[in-house]
Protein backbone atom coordinates (compact mmCIF):
# COMPACT_ATOMS: atom_id res chain seq x y z
CA UNK A 1 0.00 0.00 0.00
CA UNK A 2 1.27 3.47 -0.88
CA UNK A 3 0.98 6.28 1.68
CA UNK A 4 -1.16 8.25 -0.80
CA UNK A 5 -3.70 5.46 -1.41
CA UNK A 6 -7.12 5.81 0.21
CA UNK A 7 -8.62 2.54 1.46
CA UNK A 8 -12.37 2.25 1.77
CA UNK A 9 -14.84 -0.45 2.74
CA UNK A 10 -17.01 -1.04 -0.34
CA UNK A 11 -20.75 -1.32 -0.15
CA UNK A 12 -21.77 -4.60 1.46
CA UNK A 13 -18.71 -4.79 3.73
CA UNK A 14 -19.09 -3.54 7.29
CA UNK A 15 -17.79 -3.87 10.83
CA UNK A 16 -20.13 -5.59 13.22
CA UNK A 17 -19.83 -6.35 16.91
CA UNK A 18 -20.78 -9.99 17.48
CA UNK A 19 -22.32 -10.02 20.95
CA UNK A 20 -22.73 -13.80 21.04
CA UNK A 21 -19.00 -14.42 20.49
CA UNK A 22 -17.89 -11.14 22.12
CA UNK A 23 -15.72 -10.07 19.19
CA UNK A 24 -15.62 -7.70 16.23
CA UNK A 25 -16.21 -9.24 12.82
CA UNK A 26 -16.03 -7.93 9.28
CA UNK A 27 -19.23 -8.83 7.45
CA UNK A 28 -18.90 -9.21 3.69
CA UNK A 29 -20.91 -10.96 0.96
CA UNK A 30 -21.51 -14.50 2.26
CA UNK A 31 -18.50 -14.22 4.58
CA UNK A 32 -17.76 -13.22 8.16
CA UNK A 33 -14.14 -12.59 9.18
CA UNK A 34 -13.28 -12.58 12.88
CA UNK A 35 -11.09 -9.59 13.69
CA UNK A 36 -8.41 -9.47 16.38
CA UNK A 37 -7.68 -6.22 18.21
CA UNK A 38 -5.14 -5.10 15.62
CA UNK A 39 -7.44 -5.84 12.66
CA UNK A 40 -10.29 -3.96 14.29
CA UNK A 41 -8.03 -1.00 15.14
CA UNK A 42 -6.85 -0.75 11.53
CA UNK A 43 -10.32 -0.96 9.99
CA UNK A 44 -11.74 1.50 12.50
CA UNK A 45 -9.44 4.12 10.96
CA UNK A 46 -10.72 3.42 7.43
CA UNK A 47 -13.24 6.15 6.63
CA UNK A 48 -12.92 6.46 2.85
CA UNK A 49 -11.26 9.89 3.15
CA UNK A 50 -7.91 9.55 4.89
CA UNK A 51 -5.03 7.96 3.01
CA UNK A 52 -2.88 5.06 4.13
CA UNK A 53 -0.12 7.39 5.40
CA UNK A 54 -2.54 9.29 7.64
CA UNK A 55 -3.96 6.04 8.97
CA UNK A 56 -0.60 4.49 9.85
CA UNK A 57 0.53 7.68 11.60
CA UNK A 58 -2.67 7.77 13.63
CA UNK A 59 -2.24 4.13 14.63
CA UNK A 60 1.44 4.64 15.50
CA UNK A 61 0.53 7.53 17.78
CA UNK A 62 -2.35 5.61 19.34
CA UNK A 63 -0.29 2.51 20.13
CA UNK A 64 3.13 4.16 20.65
CA UNK A 65 4.66 1.88 18.01
CA UNK A 66 7.13 2.62 15.16
CA UNK A 67 5.23 3.83 12.09
CA UNK A 68 7.28 1.52 9.80
CA UNK A 69 6.13 -1.55 11.72
CA UNK A 70 2.50 -0.38 11.72
CA UNK A 71 2.68 0.34 7.99
CA UNK A 72 4.08 -3.12 7.23
CA UNK A 73 1.45 -4.96 9.31
CA UNK A 74 -1.42 -2.81 8.03
CA UNK A 75 -0.33 -3.17 4.42
CA UNK A 76 -0.26 -6.97 4.65
CA UNK A 77 -3.67 -7.05 6.32
CA UNK A 78 -5.23 -4.68 3.80
CA UNK A 79 -3.73 -6.52 0.84
CA UNK A 80 -5.33 -9.73 2.04
CA UNK A 81 -8.68 -7.95 2.23
CA UNK A 82 -8.17 -6.37 -1.20
CA UNK A 83 -7.53 -9.74 -2.77
CA UNK A 84 -10.86 -10.93 -1.41
CA UNK A 85 -12.59 -7.75 -2.63
CA UNK A 86 -13.42 -6.74 0.97
CA UNK A 87 -11.48 -3.48 0.62
CA UNK A 88 -11.24 -0.98 -2.23
CA UNK A 89 -8.39 1.45 -2.79
CA UNK A 90 -8.60 4.71 -4.70
Amino acid at each position, binding site marked *: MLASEVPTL*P*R*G*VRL*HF*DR*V*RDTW*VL*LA*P*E*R*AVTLDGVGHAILSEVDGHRNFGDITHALAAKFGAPVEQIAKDSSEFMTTL*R*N*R*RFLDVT
Partner: protein
Amino acid sequence: MMQVPAPIAMLAELTHRCPLSCPYCSNPVELARQENELDTQTWGRVFREAAQLGVLQLHLSGGEPASRRDLTDLVRAARTAGLYTNLITSGIGLTERRLRDLDEAGLDHIQLSLQGTTPEMADEIGGYKGGYARKLQVAHWIGEIGFPLTLNAVLHRRNLHQLPRALEMAQEMGARRIEVATVQFHGWALKNRDGLMPTREQARTASRIVAEARAALKGRLVIDYVPADYHDDFPKRCMGGWGTTGLNVTPDGQVLPCHAAQTIPHLKFDRVQEKSLDDIWYNGSAFQAYRGTDWMQEPCRSCDRKLIDFGGCRCQAMAIVGDASATDPVCVKSPHHGALQTQADAHASQTDAELIYRVSPGQKAEPAS
Protein backbone atom coordinates in the same frame (compact mmCIF):
# COMPACT_ATOMS: atom_id res chain seq x y z
CA MET B 1 -18.74 -34.36 24.47
CA MET B 2 -17.70 -31.62 22.08
CA GLN B 3 -18.39 -27.97 22.74
CA VAL B 4 -21.09 -27.00 20.24
CA PRO B 5 -20.35 -23.68 18.51
CA ALA B 6 -23.09 -21.24 17.58
CA PRO B 7 -24.08 -21.28 13.89
CA ILE B 8 -22.75 -18.55 11.60
CA ALA B 9 -25.12 -18.91 8.66
CA MET B 10 -28.77 -19.66 8.09
CA LEU B 11 -30.37 -20.59 4.78
CA ALA B 12 -33.99 -19.48 4.80
CA GLU B 13 -35.91 -21.27 2.07
CA LEU B 14 -38.77 -18.80 1.88
CA THR B 15 -40.73 -20.80 -0.68
CA HIS B 16 -40.33 -23.79 -2.96
CA ARG B 17 -42.23 -21.97 -5.71
CA CYS B 18 -40.09 -20.96 -8.69
CA PRO B 19 -40.74 -19.87 -12.28
CA LEU B 20 -37.74 -21.92 -13.41
CA SER B 21 -37.64 -25.71 -13.39
CA CYS B 22 -33.91 -26.48 -13.42
CA PRO B 23 -33.24 -30.23 -13.53
CA TYR B 24 -30.58 -29.89 -10.80
CA CYS B 25 -32.71 -27.96 -8.31
CA SER B 26 -31.46 -28.60 -4.77
CA ASN B 27 -34.99 -28.50 -3.35
CA PRO B 28 -36.35 -31.84 -2.18
CA VAL B 29 -38.33 -33.91 -4.66
CA GLU B 30 -41.33 -33.52 -2.29
CA LEU B 31 -41.88 -29.76 -2.43
CA ALA B 32 -43.62 -27.71 0.26
CA ARG B 33 -46.92 -26.19 -0.85
CA GLN B 34 -47.65 -22.47 -0.74
CA GLU B 35 -50.42 -22.81 1.86
CA ASN B 36 -47.91 -24.33 4.29
CA GLU B 37 -45.33 -21.55 3.96
CA LEU B 38 -44.37 -19.61 7.09
CA ASP B 39 -45.96 -16.15 7.21
CA THR B 40 -44.13 -12.82 7.45
CA GLN B 41 -44.43 -12.55 11.23
CA THR B 42 -43.12 -16.04 11.86
CA TRP B 43 -40.10 -15.50 9.60
CA GLY B 44 -39.42 -12.24 11.45
CA ARG B 45 -39.40 -14.09 14.77
CA VAL B 46 -37.12 -16.78 13.32
CA PHE B 47 -34.68 -14.09 12.11
CA ARG B 48 -34.57 -12.55 15.60
CA GLU B 49 -34.02 -15.97 17.17
CA ALA B 50 -31.25 -16.66 14.65
CA ALA B 51 -29.45 -13.40 15.46
CA GLN B 52 -29.69 -14.13 19.20
CA LEU B 53 -28.31 -17.61 18.58
CA GLY B 54 -25.24 -16.17 16.81
CA VAL B 55 -26.15 -16.31 13.13
CA LEU B 56 -24.43 -13.51 11.19
CA GLN B 57 -25.20 -14.38 7.58
CA LEU B 58 -28.75 -14.90 6.35
CA HIS B 59 -29.22 -16.40 2.91
CA LEU B 60 -32.71 -15.73 1.55
CA SER B 61 -33.35 -18.50 -0.89
CA GLY B 62 -36.07 -20.74 -2.30
CA GLY B 63 -37.28 -21.84 -4.77
CA GLU B 64 -37.26 -18.31 -6.03
CA PRO B 65 -37.44 -15.91 -3.05
CA ALA B 66 -38.85 -13.17 -5.30
CA SER B 67 -41.98 -15.33 -5.56
CA ARG B 68 -42.73 -14.15 -2.00
CA ARG B 69 -44.71 -10.91 -2.19
CA ASP B 70 -43.46 -9.95 1.29
CA LEU B 71 -39.77 -10.23 0.32
CA THR B 72 -39.04 -6.57 1.09
CA ASP B 73 -40.67 -6.86 4.52
CA LEU B 74 -38.65 -10.00 5.20
CA VAL B 75 -35.39 -8.24 4.29
CA ARG B 76 -36.29 -5.33 6.53
CA ALA B 77 -37.09 -7.68 9.42
CA ALA B 78 -33.77 -9.49 8.96
CA ARG B 79 -31.77 -6.26 8.88
CA THR B 80 -33.58 -4.98 11.95
CA ALA B 81 -32.62 -8.23 13.68
CA GLY B 82 -28.97 -7.43 12.86
CA LEU B 83 -28.39 -10.04 10.16
CA TYR B 84 -26.34 -9.65 6.98
CA THR B 85 -28.85 -10.27 4.20
CA ASN B 86 -28.01 -12.12 1.00
CA LEU B 87 -30.64 -12.70 -1.70
CA ILE B 88 -30.12 -15.86 -3.74
CA THR B 89 -32.18 -15.41 -6.90
CA SER B 90 -32.54 -16.25 -10.57
CA GLY B 91 -33.65 -12.66 -11.06
CA ILE B 92 -37.05 -13.72 -12.39
CA GLY B 93 -39.76 -11.81 -10.54
CA LEU B 94 -37.55 -8.84 -9.69
CA THR B 95 -38.47 -5.50 -11.23
CA GLU B 96 -36.50 -2.28 -10.98
CA ARG B 97 -39.09 -1.02 -8.50
CA ARG B 98 -38.76 -4.11 -6.30
CA LEU B 99 -34.97 -3.88 -6.37
CA ARG B 100 -35.13 -0.25 -5.27
CA ASP B 101 -37.49 -1.23 -2.45
CA LEU B 102 -35.06 -3.98 -1.41
CA ASP B 103 -32.25 -1.43 -1.46
CA GLU B 104 -34.24 0.86 0.78
CA ALA B 105 -35.00 -2.08 3.11
CA GLY B 106 -31.27 -2.66 3.53
CA LEU B 107 -30.51 -5.71 1.40
CA ASP B 108 -26.73 -6.26 1.63
CA HIS B 109 -25.86 -8.50 -1.32
CA ILE B 110 -27.31 -10.40 -4.26
CA GLN B 111 -26.27 -13.77 -5.61
CA LEU B 112 -27.60 -14.15 -9.14
CA SER B 113 -27.74 -17.62 -10.67
CA LEU B 114 -26.65 -18.29 -14.25
CA GLN B 115 -28.04 -21.32 -16.10
CA GLY B 116 -25.99 -20.72 -19.25
CA THR B 117 -24.14 -17.96 -21.09
CA THR B 118 -26.43 -17.95 -24.15
CA PRO B 119 -30.22 -17.53 -24.24
CA GLU B 120 -30.52 -20.95 -25.90
CA MET B 121 -28.61 -22.77 -23.15
CA ALA B 122 -29.95 -20.78 -20.20
CA ASP B 123 -33.61 -20.99 -21.25
CA GLU B 124 -33.36 -24.70 -22.04
CA ILE B 125 -31.78 -25.56 -18.68
CA GLY B 126 -34.07 -23.23 -16.71
CA GLY B 127 -37.11 -24.40 -18.66
CA TYR B 128 -38.23 -20.77 -18.94
CA LYS B 129 -38.34 -18.93 -22.25
CA GLY B 130 -37.05 -15.38 -22.04
CA GLY B 131 -35.41 -16.02 -18.67
CA TYR B 132 -31.91 -15.21 -19.88
CA ALA B 133 -32.89 -11.84 -21.35
CA ARG B 134 -34.76 -10.98 -18.18
CA LYS B 135 -31.75 -11.97 -16.06
CA LEU B 136 -29.46 -9.63 -17.99
CA GLN B 137 -31.95 -6.81 -17.47
CA VAL B 138 -32.02 -7.55 -13.72
CA ALA B 139 -28.19 -7.67 -13.62
CA HIS B 140 -28.16 -4.20 -15.21
CA TRP B 141 -30.49 -2.79 -12.52
CA ILE B 142 -28.42 -4.46 -9.79
CA GLY B 143 -25.35 -2.69 -11.17
CA GLU B 144 -27.18 0.66 -11.42
CA ILE B 145 -28.35 0.50 -7.83
CA GLY B 146 -24.90 -0.66 -6.74
CA PHE B 147 -25.70 -3.88 -4.90
CA PRO B 148 -22.61 -6.06 -4.40
CA LEU B 149 -23.08 -8.98 -6.78
CA THR B 150 -21.95 -12.58 -6.92
CA LEU B 151 -22.68 -14.49 -10.10
CA ASN B 152 -23.42 -18.15 -9.44
CA ALA B 153 -22.69 -20.18 -12.57
CA VAL B 154 -24.11 -23.68 -12.26
CA LEU B 155 -22.17 -26.03 -14.52
CA HIS B 156 -22.60 -29.59 -15.74
CA ARG B 157 -21.86 -31.70 -18.81
CA ARG B 158 -24.12 -29.63 -21.10
CA ASN B 159 -22.68 -26.20 -20.32
CA LEU B 160 -19.18 -26.66 -18.84
CA HIS B 161 -17.72 -25.44 -22.13
CA GLN B 162 -19.29 -22.05 -21.33
CA LEU B 163 -17.16 -21.52 -18.21
CA PRO B 164 -14.73 -19.04 -19.89
CA ARG B 165 -17.67 -16.91 -21.06
CA ALA B 166 -19.25 -17.04 -17.58
CA LEU B 167 -16.04 -15.60 -16.15
CA GLU B 168 -16.22 -12.76 -18.69
CA MET B 169 -19.89 -12.12 -17.94
CA ALA B 170 -19.18 -11.80 -14.22
CA GLN B 171 -16.68 -9.05 -14.99
CA GLU B 172 -19.03 -7.32 -17.45
CA MET B 173 -21.77 -7.30 -14.82
CA GLY B 174 -19.38 -5.76 -12.29
CA ALA B 175 -19.57 -8.78 -9.97
CA ARG B 176 -16.92 -8.93 -7.28
CA ARG B 177 -17.19 -12.66 -7.09
CA ILE B 178 -18.25 -15.66 -9.12
CA GLU B 179 -19.16 -19.03 -7.77
CA VAL B 180 -18.22 -21.71 -10.27
CA ALA B 181 -20.50 -24.44 -9.00
CA THR B 182 -20.38 -27.82 -10.65
CA VAL B 183 -23.71 -29.52 -10.02
CA GLN B 184 -23.79 -31.61 -6.86
CA PHE B 185 -26.02 -34.62 -7.08
CA HIS B 186 -28.74 -34.06 -4.50
CA GLY B 187 -32.42 -33.22 -4.84
CA TRP B 188 -33.58 -33.17 -8.46
CA ALA B 189 -30.02 -33.54 -9.77
CA LEU B 190 -29.94 -37.11 -8.46
CA LYS B 191 -32.65 -37.93 -11.05
CA ASN B 192 -30.51 -36.35 -13.77
CA ARG B 193 -27.10 -37.88 -13.35
CA ASP B 194 -27.27 -39.34 -16.88
CA GLY B 195 -28.11 -35.94 -18.32
CA LEU B 196 -25.78 -33.77 -16.26
CA MET B 197 -22.73 -35.74 -15.07
CA PRO B 198 -19.58 -34.07 -16.39
CA THR B 199 -16.94 -36.20 -18.04
CA ARG B 200 -13.65 -36.67 -16.22
CA GLU B 201 -11.98 -34.58 -18.92
CA GLN B 202 -14.46 -31.72 -18.44
CA ALA B 203 -13.86 -31.76 -14.69
CA ARG B 204 -10.08 -31.55 -15.21
CA THR B 205 -10.43 -28.73 -17.74
CA ALA B 206 -12.66 -26.73 -15.41
CA SER B 207 -10.13 -27.01 -12.58
CA ARG B 208 -7.38 -25.77 -14.89
CA ILE B 209 -9.45 -22.83 -16.19
CA VAL B 210 -10.34 -21.81 -12.64
CA ALA B 211 -6.70 -21.96 -11.49
CA GLU B 212 -5.57 -19.81 -14.42
CA ALA B 213 -8.40 -17.31 -13.99
CA ARG B 214 -7.73 -16.97 -10.26
CA ALA B 215 -4.15 -15.96 -11.01
CA ALA B 216 -5.09 -13.62 -13.87
CA LEU B 217 -7.99 -11.91 -12.05
CA LYS B 218 -6.49 -11.66 -8.56
CA GLY B 219 -7.87 -8.66 -6.69
CA ARG B 220 -10.53 -8.05 -9.36
CA LEU B 221 -12.76 -11.11 -9.38
CA VAL B 222 -12.86 -13.63 -6.54
CA ILE B 223 -13.56 -17.16 -7.77
CA ASP B 224 -15.13 -19.71 -5.47
CA TYR B 225 -15.03 -23.16 -6.99
CA VAL B 226 -17.12 -26.23 -6.29
CA PRO B 227 -15.45 -29.00 -8.31
CA ALA B 228 -17.22 -31.99 -9.84
CA ASP B 229 -17.92 -34.32 -6.97
CA TYR B 230 -17.94 -37.92 -8.17
CA HIS B 231 -14.61 -37.56 -9.98
CA ASP B 232 -12.70 -36.43 -6.87
CA ASP B 233 -10.57 -38.56 -4.56
CA PHE B 234 -11.53 -36.86 -1.32
CA PRO B 235 -15.04 -35.87 -0.30
CA LYS B 236 -16.22 -32.34 0.38
CA ARG B 237 -16.30 -31.10 3.93
CA CYS B 238 -19.93 -31.64 4.85
CA MET B 239 -21.54 -28.31 5.85
CA GLY B 240 -18.23 -27.32 7.47
CA GLY B 241 -19.08 -30.04 10.00
CA TRP B 242 -22.64 -31.21 10.66
CA GLY B 243 -24.36 -28.95 13.18
CA THR B 244 -21.35 -26.67 13.66
CA THR B 245 -21.66 -23.85 11.14
CA GLY B 246 -25.03 -23.53 9.49
CA LEU B 247 -28.68 -24.47 9.50
CA ASN B 248 -31.52 -24.47 7.02
CA VAL B 249 -35.18 -23.59 7.54
CA THR B 250 -37.64 -25.00 5.00
CA PRO B 251 -40.66 -23.05 3.69
CA ASP B 252 -42.93 -24.88 6.16
CA GLY B 253 -40.68 -24.33 9.17
CA GLN B 254 -38.63 -27.50 9.50
CA VAL B 255 -35.08 -26.91 10.68
CA LEU B 256 -32.46 -28.99 8.88
CA PRO B 257 -28.72 -29.42 9.43
CA CYS B 258 -28.32 -29.22 5.63
CA HIS B 259 -30.68 -28.63 2.73
CA ALA B 260 -30.66 -32.30 1.69
CA ALA B 261 -31.03 -33.79 5.18
CA GLN B 262 -34.62 -34.89 4.51
CA THR B 263 -33.21 -37.65 2.30
CA ILE B 264 -31.95 -39.42 5.45
CA PRO B 265 -35.14 -41.25 6.38
CA HIS B 266 -34.53 -41.88 10.09
CA LEU B 267 -33.93 -38.22 10.97
CA LYS B 268 -36.74 -36.27 12.68
CA PHE B 269 -36.82 -32.52 12.22
CA ASP B 270 -38.08 -29.96 14.71
CA ARG B 271 -40.16 -27.01 13.54
CA VAL B 272 -39.83 -23.34 14.36
CA GLN B 273 -43.57 -23.24 15.13
CA GLU B 274 -43.00 -25.60 18.07
CA LYS B 275 -39.53 -24.94 19.47
CA SER B 276 -37.01 -22.10 19.64
CA LEU B 277 -34.16 -22.12 17.16
CA ASP B 278 -31.74 -22.20 20.09
CA ASP B 279 -33.29 -25.37 21.50
CA ILE B 280 -33.38 -27.00 18.06
CA TRP B 281 -29.73 -26.16 17.32
CA TYR B 282 -28.30 -27.36 20.63
CA ASN B 283 -30.67 -30.22 21.50
CA GLY B 284 -32.52 -31.31 18.34
CA SER B 285 -31.97 -34.97 17.49
CA ALA B 286 -31.23 -34.29 13.79
CA PHE B 287 -28.44 -31.87 14.75
CA GLN B 288 -27.00 -34.30 17.31
CA ALA B 289 -27.06 -37.22 14.87
CA TYR B 290 -23.80 -36.53 13.00
CA ARG B 291 -22.23 -33.81 15.13
CA GLY B 292 -18.59 -34.42 16.02
CA THR B 293 -16.99 -37.80 15.27
CA ASP B 294 -18.60 -40.31 17.67
CA TRP B 295 -20.99 -41.58 14.96
CA MET B 296 -18.20 -42.51 12.55
CA GLN B 297 -17.43 -45.99 11.28
CA GLU B 298 -14.15 -47.21 9.79
CA PRO B 299 -12.34 -46.07 7.73
CA CYS B 300 -13.39 -42.61 9.00
CA ARG B 301 -12.99 -43.36 12.71
CA SER B 302 -9.20 -43.84 12.53
CA CYS B 303 -8.61 -41.50 9.57
CA ASP B 304 -6.27 -38.53 9.96
CA ARG B 305 -8.59 -36.47 7.74
CA LYS B 306 -11.69 -36.97 9.86
CA LEU B 307 -11.64 -33.41 11.20
CA ILE B 308 -10.85 -32.05 7.72
CA ASP B 309 -13.88 -33.41 5.86
CA PHE B 310 -15.93 -35.08 8.65
CA GLY B 311 -16.30 -38.17 6.48
CA GLY B 312 -17.82 -36.15 3.64
CA CYS B 313 -21.49 -35.79 2.82
CA ARG B 314 -23.97 -37.77 4.93
CA CYS B 315 -26.69 -37.42 2.31
CA GLN B 316 -24.37 -38.75 -0.39
CA ALA B 317 -23.46 -41.76 1.77
CA MET B 318 -27.20 -42.35 2.20
CA ALA B 319 -28.00 -41.93 -1.50
CA ILE B 320 -25.24 -44.13 -2.87
CA VAL B 321 -24.30 -46.60 -0.14
CA GLY B 322 -27.67 -46.67 1.65
CA ASP B 323 -26.08 -45.86 5.04
CA ALA B 324 -25.84 -42.26 6.23
CA SER B 325 -23.05 -43.18 8.70
CA ALA B 326 -20.82 -44.66 5.99
CA THR B 327 -17.78 -42.93 4.52
CA ASP B 328 -18.78 -40.70 1.60
CA PRO B 329 -18.15 -43.01 -1.39
CA VAL B 330 -16.26 -40.21 -3.16
CA CYS B 331 -13.39 -40.90 -0.72
CA VAL B 332 -10.57 -43.15 -2.02
CA LYS B 333 -10.68 -44.95 1.32
CA SER B 334 -14.32 -45.97 0.84
CA PRO B 335 -14.80 -49.56 -0.35
CA HIS B 336 -17.37 -48.08 -2.78
CA HIS B 337 -15.01 -45.54 -4.36
CA GLY B 338 -14.11 -47.66 -7.41
CA ALA B 339 -17.73 -48.48 -8.14
CA LEU B 340 -18.66 -44.80 -7.89
CA GLN B 341 -15.96 -43.79 -10.37
CA THR B 342 -17.19 -46.43 -12.82
CA GLN B 343 -20.77 -45.25 -12.24
CA ALA B 344 -19.76 -41.60 -12.84
CA ASP B 345 -18.15 -42.48 -16.17
CA ALA B 346 -21.26 -44.45 -17.15
CA HIS B 347 -23.53 -41.48 -16.32
CA ALA B 348 -21.24 -39.12 -18.23
CA SER B 349 -21.42 -41.27 -21.38
CA GLN B 350 -25.25 -41.08 -21.66
CA THR B 351 -25.07 -38.45 -24.36
CA ASP B 352 -28.71 -38.73 -25.41
CA ALA B 353 -30.21 -38.71 -21.91
CA GLU B 354 -33.32 -36.56 -21.51
CA LEU B 355 -33.57 -34.08 -18.67
CA ILE B 356 -36.19 -34.51 -15.98
CA TYR B 357 -37.32 -31.02 -15.03
CA ARG B 358 -38.32 -29.97 -11.57
CA VAL B 359 -42.06 -29.39 -11.15
CA SER B 360 -44.11 -26.90 -9.15
CA PRO B 361 -45.09 -27.74 -5.56
CA GLY B 362 -47.97 -30.21 -5.67
CA GLN B 363 -47.28 -31.54 -9.19
CA LYS B 364 -45.83 -34.90 -10.17
CA ALA B 365 -42.48 -35.25 -11.96
CA GLU B 366 -42.43 -36.54 -15.52
CA PRO B 367 -39.58 -36.89 -18.00
CA ALA B 368 -39.28 -33.94 -20.37
CA SER B 369 -40.60 -34.59 -23.86
